[in-house]
């Protein structure tokens, strides 16, 4: 379904749905009733070659289920899904050789053996040529700074080291698409920075397409040029971050520093959400004219400093997940 003149998309999802049948006890006694749980409910999107896409949503929104369908572990209940031009569940083995996957909360490495051994096994699993393996391993070792712990058993690695090892394991066979399920979960700021810097380079220099699920807002702001947001199994948003802020009409924040501490300022349509000494935080509705508000404040109060802050992505997402904001799904 690639548009004419453009290379075929890396991922094409059309009305993809996945539901699970659960059996639950109906009251007392052995009788059980079947209930259907819809984890993903008709999701459509396309990811082109070389894109870096964030796949976001609250817990239980259907992100992991989508990733399991993309990698062929789960079969969609309906809809069509193509990854690298293949049907993931039917051509799982062939597809696995062309994509890399990191499940942040799980590891593909062998716990009791040195990292190097797991990487050797991965080479055999993906049948990578010895020379290509040596080259990629050297490259990944340098980029991910693996050298100091290549010969350490995985169980002795810190979480950050293990995650770098898992990233190397996912990339040793040179995949075109990298799917990451919460790769920075639990990492400290330094490890996060290393992982993010690495992913950025991988995408920019190698052109590897990356699909990332995360709850880490730093990941999103730093890495994702485009975000897809799922909620209750449906696609709620598809676009870049600026458009996301606009789409959800998030309020801005005006931070005012008065000449001296005083009671909360009073101005029509403005709500003071916090005061701290002479500093006050004012919520500015999206429709309000910031210049007029600032002028109005300056007329009535003596102001020593002022700053206008866009809603940060955390507030935008929280509002979106809670359903505070009206939004309309935007076409890609």
């Amino acid at each position, binding site marked *: 379904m690639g548009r004419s003149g453009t290379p075929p998309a890396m991922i094409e999802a059309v009305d993809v749905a996945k539901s699970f049948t659960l059996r639950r006890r109906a009251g007392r006694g052995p009788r059980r009733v079947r209930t259907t749980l819809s984890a993903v409910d008709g999701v459509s999107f396309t990811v082109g070659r070389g894109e870096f896409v964030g796949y976001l949503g609250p817990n239980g929104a259907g992100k*992991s289920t989508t990733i399991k369908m993309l990698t062929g572990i789960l079969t969609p209940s309906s809809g069509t899904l193509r990854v690298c031009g293949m049907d993931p569940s039917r051509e799982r083995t062939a597809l696995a050789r062309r994509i890399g996957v990191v499940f942040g909360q799980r590891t593909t490495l062998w716990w009791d053996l040195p990292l190097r051994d797991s990487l050797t096994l991965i080479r055999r*699993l993906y049948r990578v040529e010895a020379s290509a393996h040596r080259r990629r391993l050297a490259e990944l070792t340098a980029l991910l700074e693996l050298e100091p712990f290549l010969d350490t058993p995985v169980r002795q690695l810190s979480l950050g080291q293990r995650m770098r090892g898992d990233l190397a394991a996912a990339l040793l066979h040179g995949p075109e698409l990298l799917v990451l399920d919460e790769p920075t979960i639990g990492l400290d700021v330094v490890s996060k920075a290393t992982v993010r810097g690495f992913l950025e380079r991988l995408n920019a220099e190698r052109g590897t397409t990356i699909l990332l699920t995360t709850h880490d807002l730093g990941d999103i702001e730093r890495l994702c040029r485009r975000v897809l947001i799922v909620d209750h199994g449906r696609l709620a948003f598809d676009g870049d971050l600026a458009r996301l802020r606009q789409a959800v009409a998030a309020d801005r924040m005006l931070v005012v520093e008065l000449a001296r501490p005083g009671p909360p300022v009073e101005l029509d349509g403005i709500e003071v959400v916090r005061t701290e000494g002479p500093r006050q935080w004012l919520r500015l509705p999206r429709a309000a004219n910031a210049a007029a508000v600032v002028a109005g404040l300056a007329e009535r109060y003596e102001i020593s400093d002022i700053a206008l802050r866009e809603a940060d992505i955390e507030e935008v997402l929280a509002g979106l997940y809670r359903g505070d904001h009206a939004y309309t799904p935007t076409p890609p």
Partner: protein
Amino acid sequence: MGVFPWVTWFAFRRHTAYPLGSAAEALTNTVFGFIRASVLIGLWRARPHLGGYDQADAVTFCFLTQALIGPVQIFGGMELTQRIRSGDVAIDLYRPAGLQGWWLADDLGRAAGSLALRGGPPMVAGALVFPFHWPGPGGLAAFAAALALGVLVSFGLRYLMALAVFWLHDDRGLNAVALVMSLFFSGMIVPLVAFPGTLGTVARALPWAAQIQVPADVFLGKHSGAGLAGALAFQAMWAAALIGAGHLLTRAARRRLVIHGG
């Protein structure tokens, strides 16, 4: 060469990575060997030539089967079970390799590692204290084949049990039943040759017999010629049936899959 021999090799290394732990297990197996041996000696004093075994056969059987506890993992269990419960099986299912083949290769490495570190001590200790029955080179070769088939049968049974966790929320009941069946019908408690009448006939036809009783009988030289071929064929039949069933169940599991834990 495919990846499976490598999986076996790395599993062997993994299961020999903690020699002190293995030494402790070997010591436990040896101590229990002496306890079991004294019970069996009492039984064979009361009933000499019970089931065609003499006292040396019974004692050899006892220490040999203690040595096989690890390799055939007679107490059951498989790492795969935990991985299904935790959802880590997603990693196994995603790999470009078959789930059953991967875990079979892993289990063969585990069994070899266990035999290497836990097999020797009970045998040596038993042989130093009691009259013992050692096979010749031909018998040893036949025993190696019987042991390998016993490990395959053991894998076949434990793999089915592990996959059951895809359907069951709690497998403790199943494990308890399996453990009793495994200990009783493998010959670990009393050699199956001592089981009377129909019970003995049935016990000797079940797959658990293929894990312990048959390899032990081969070690003791109780089979020869066509009898030996028949014993190995009996094991091979159960191994094929169980692994075949595991193959079908793997396909069913993939279809109905619910991965636990997101």
